[in-house]
């Protein structure tokens, strides 16, 4: 029997990019694998839920869970993993904040099902059948499906989370630092997000070009702007860069590719709502003072969801949209 610490890895509502990020550790993953025993990883290895159910409570040192929670099955398994693991790590933007799948909180079960199963142009579903938690197959066999919830939940709304490894996907260094901290017993205070508690602007290579008195009189969309590579702070050009409301630690991946930050590392500790914090910061630097002129500037920014809540709608204060029924 090995004495190595046991580790579990699981995915919920996510794209698979977080699993990819683990594999992208390249040679470094070999060190990780040498130091631990992976006892549950449905995407990559053949384990059954029953294997986990048979474990003693707290038998695993840690479970890494990516994806938000949208299905009852996911809720059941993360609760199981919570019992069987000493530590739970929310891995990646979706487990942390709902992520891109969390944009579905602008809809509910009914509108999602209608679109996906009834209205989609490529569908062939004349009877308008949508998934049911229980149904009869051939009139006699009972088939069960997990329940699809109305909303996408960040992991910590379902179970107690010890640490968060942020990012879409987490950058290799962020992951390795987390593993090192676990194995060396150097984890910070429970509840921490394992990346520096400062804003991306603080570490941005473009920060010195940010004017002292920044003002905005028009918002521009990046694909319609031809000077993205001029090395200057994006905000100066009226391009929304989430840097001021986003945690540092990704290595400024997007900025270095001449694209503004979309906020995947989530906010620093003091920010309750990343999107509205950014909106507030931007609003404060709108140039004109007269209401009519303010509104003219804001007409160039028609949407408040995708630019500000690309990764964090279910983590926002209001959590989801109210559906008009």
């Amino acid at each position, binding site marked *: 029997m090995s004495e190595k610490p046991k580790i579990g890895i699981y995915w919920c509502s996510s794209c698979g990019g977080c699993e990819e990020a683990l594999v992208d550790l390249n040679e470094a993953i070999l060190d990780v694998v040498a130091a631990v025993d992976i006892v549950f990883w449905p995407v990559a290895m053949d384990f059954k839920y029953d294997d986990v159910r048979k474990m003693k409570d707290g038998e695993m040192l840690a479970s890494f869970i990516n994806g938000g929670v949208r299905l009852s099955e996911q809720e059941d398994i993360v609760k199981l993993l919570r019992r069987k693991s000493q530590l739970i790590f929310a891995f990646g933007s979706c487990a942390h904040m709902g992520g891109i799948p969390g944009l579905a909180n602008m809809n509910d079960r009914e509108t999602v099902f209608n679109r996906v199963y009834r209205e989609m142009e490529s569908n062939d579903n004349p009877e308008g059948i949508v998934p049911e938690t229980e149904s009869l197959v051939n009139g006699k066999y009972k088939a069960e499906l997990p329940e699809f919830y109305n909303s996408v939940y960040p992991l910590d709304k379902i179970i107690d989370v010890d640490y968060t490894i942020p990012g879409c996907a987490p950058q290799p260094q962020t992951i390795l630092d987390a593993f090192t901290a676990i194995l060396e017993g150097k984890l910070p205070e429970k509840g921490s997000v394992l990346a520096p508690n400062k804003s991306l602007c603080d570490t941005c290579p473009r920060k010195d070009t940010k004017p002292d008195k920044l003002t905005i009189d028009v918002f521009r969309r990046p694909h319609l702007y031809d000077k993205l590579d001029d090395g200057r702070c994006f905000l100066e050009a009226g391009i929304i860069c989430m840097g001021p409301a986003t945690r540092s630690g990704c290595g400024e991946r997007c900025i270095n590719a001449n694209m503004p930050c979309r906020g995947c590392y989530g906010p620093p500790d003091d920010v309750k709502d990343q999107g509205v914090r950014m909106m507030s910061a931007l609003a404060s630097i709108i140039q004109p003072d007269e209401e009519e002129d303010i509104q003219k500037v804001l007409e160039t920014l028609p949407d408040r969801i995708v630019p500000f809540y690309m990764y964090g709608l279910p983590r926002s204060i209001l959590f989801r949209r109210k*559906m008009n029924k």
Partner: protein
Amino acid sequence: MSENGFEPKIVAFVCNWCSYGGADIAGNQRMNYSPNVTLVRVMCSGRVDPEFVLEALRDGADGVMILGCHPGDCHYIEGNYRTLKRYNMLKPLLKQFNIEENRVVLDWVSASEGEKFARVVQAMNERITQLGPLNWDKVSSER
């Protein structure tokens, strides 16, 4: 209270230098304004972070008012212009969340306008009574 028994919960952020004075006069002169308004005194309307507004709605308010000094009169010179900008930024977000437009309002009330204070609060109360409860906890907890 309205006929259906609904008593709106309204949170009003009032700035210390103008609107709080207005509220004070309204109170002292026993003007008839709704008792179901919770006043939150802030130093300046510019201190009202949109996060406060959203938290109030999430935590049970049916409506939120932000009241500050008239443009040009802010004790901190530009605070209320900032408020005006943030408010205009915030409104479309509320709309996208299907929160009725009138649930969050911004108005200017000076320290001497007790009568205006009573009037805008009363009008707010009537509008929210008509809209009915917001019940955000129900919106966000429905599995």
